[in-house]
């Protein structure tokens, strides 16, 4: 927005009520004055930024697709445009209409070793907060896919800031287009296999109720009881609390597996205030990455409007929101998720026929070379 437009807006803000024939009150004048101050500061910030760029001889072009705006030097803007086009396709497909939340944010593409100068990042970061801006650095040999891959997490972070706190505290991860790969599903498989909690083990063995508990999706007043089973408490005390707390209770828990003592230690454990401060009193049995795979499948199944549906009713429970996003009952979604995870173990430790025959072949080749040696001649 140019300085002139801002000035015009400011003038309008002053004269508009008067034109309506109403007499403004002192409070209204004060409010208008504050609004003018804000507009003036913003105009001043833009003007200062333009001046500093001019002084530094920096010319920036823009690459825009949808609500995604990237600034780049004249030599890099072609690459930026290709990258922005790819990134926006992913953002639009994943976030649907909510990808428009990116409007008003700017990214600056910096290619390592680029010919065009870029503004001093310190000056940009220390500017007024409403001049939003983030540097996106890519390697000197980056192509459009690389630019897109670098832009996507930055853009996804901006969109995630608009998510409601209930969802963010449950997920504790950022949904990024293309961010969930087969490797992540393999990692989730490993987690379900190796985690000792009854819920994660039960989920691996096919109990969907256990999957709900493992994913911290079973409601109730006490997550320690809802998400964990009696056999887990001792391991929780041993692994998570580092045996801090009332020594008598810790001993009773660790030595005799006293469930009441274990729960007392857990409920009053030393890091509870930290979790409470962050809205989570109890650590979920599985990692945020595991929950992210569930959300990703819901978005995949729900199509372009899935994310807006997921965010449409912050008061609904997370399972209901995920079901709405996926457009199918939650248990069906959960079954799909589990099937996908179970179908993604790491490649088994086997020697394939190809590897074996090639090894035999090389052994024969070297053996033949030894037979052909001229040592005795």
């Amino acid at each position, binding site marked *: 927005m140019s300085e002139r437009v801002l000035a015009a807006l400011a003038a309008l803000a002053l004269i508009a009520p008067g034109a309506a024939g109403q007499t403004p009150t002192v409070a209204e004048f004060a409010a208008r004055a504050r609004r003018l101050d804000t507009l003036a500061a913003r105009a001043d910030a833009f003007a200062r930024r333009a001046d500093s760029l001019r002084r530094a001889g920096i010319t920036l072009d823009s690459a825009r697709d949808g609500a995604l705006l990237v600034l780049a030097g004249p030599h890099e803007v072609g690459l930026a445009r290709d990258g922005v086009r790819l990134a926006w396709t992913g953002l639009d497909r994943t976030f649907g209409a909510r990808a428009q939340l990116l409007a008003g944010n700017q990214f600056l593409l910096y290619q390592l070793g680029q010919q065009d100068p870029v503004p001093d990042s310190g000056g940009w970061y220390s500017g007024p907060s409403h001049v939003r801006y983030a540097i996106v650095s890519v390697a000197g040999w980056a192509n459009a896919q690389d630019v897109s891959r670098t832009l996507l997490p930055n853009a996804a972070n901006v969109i995630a800031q608009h998510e409601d706190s209930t969802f963010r505290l449950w997920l504790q991860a950022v949904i990024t287009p293309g961010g969930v790969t087969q490797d992540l599903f393999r990692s989730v*498989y*490993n987690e*379900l*296999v*190796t*985690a*000792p*909690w009854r819920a994660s*083990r039960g989920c*691996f*063995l096919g109990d969907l109720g256990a999957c709900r508990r493992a994913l911290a999706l079973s409601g109730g007043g006490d997550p320690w009881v809802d998400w964990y089973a009696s056999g887990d408490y001792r*391991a929780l005390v*041993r*692994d998570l609390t580092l045996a801090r707390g009332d020594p008598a209770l810790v001993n009773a828990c660790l030595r005799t597996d006293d469930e009441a003592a274990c729960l007392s230690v857990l409920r009053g454990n030393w890091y509870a205030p930290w979790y409470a401060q962050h809205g989570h009193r109890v650590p979920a049995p599985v990692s945020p990455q595991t929950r992210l795979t569930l959300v990703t499948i819901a978005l995949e199944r729900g199509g372009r409007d899935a994310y807006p549906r997921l965010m449409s009713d912050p008061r609904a429970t997370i399972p209901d929101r995920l079901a709405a996003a996926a457009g199918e009952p939650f248990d069906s979604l959960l079954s799909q998720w589990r099937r996908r995870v179970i179908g993604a*173990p*790491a*490649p*088994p*430790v*086997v*020697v394939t026929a*190809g*590897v*074996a025959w*090639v*090894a*035999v072949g*090389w*052994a*024969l*080749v*070297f*053996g033949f*070379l*030894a*037979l*052909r*040696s*001229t*040592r*005795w001649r």
Partner: protein
Amino acid sequence: MFKQILYTQWKWSRLTLLLLAVVGFAIPVLSVRDFGDPSAGIWEVRDALDSVAAWGYAYPILAAAVALLLSVTTWGPDHQGRHVYALSLPVPRWHYALLRFSAGVVLIGLVVAAVWIGALVASASASAPPGLHAYPQALALRFALATVVAYSIFFAIAAGTNRTAGVILVLIIAIFVIEVVSLLAGIEATPTSFVLSHLVVWPGPLAIFTGRWMLIDV
């Protein structure tokens, strides 16, 4: 004649070979010692898998050691005796070398059997949680193939002339020198990475060494 050659090779290498067989038995058994507690916590299970993975480095090292030992002891006495014994035999050289090679492969079977039995014992003694599996056969097969490949390489080098060994040495030095010069000149593509990638990436001769040497895995 094969039995005689096998016997002499066994006599020359038996002490070290038996020691390596004991090591081959011990590695898989030691690698799963963290899997003894069925109520292991989350960190223990992951630590146990990490431990199995760490012990996995021992198998290719053992394979190379067995191969080197057998190839050296196979040709050592012949080199010391200037091949007089071999020349006195009524067989062509290729036949004699084939007998030596085959005898070495048979002796490799001893260490492979030790690794296999060790892996079976370790698998039976480990209490892995559901979802994790033991792969004693796959591990023993990979070890056998890796040892035979390494043995054939060392055997070919040991069977060659001093000139052949010199050529190989000069090649290695040349690659090292070009590597250093490339690094100093700021060139990213170095000959070492090129050569290594062609050696260890399938279908390279050492590809069998770069697989997953996990006795217990998902």
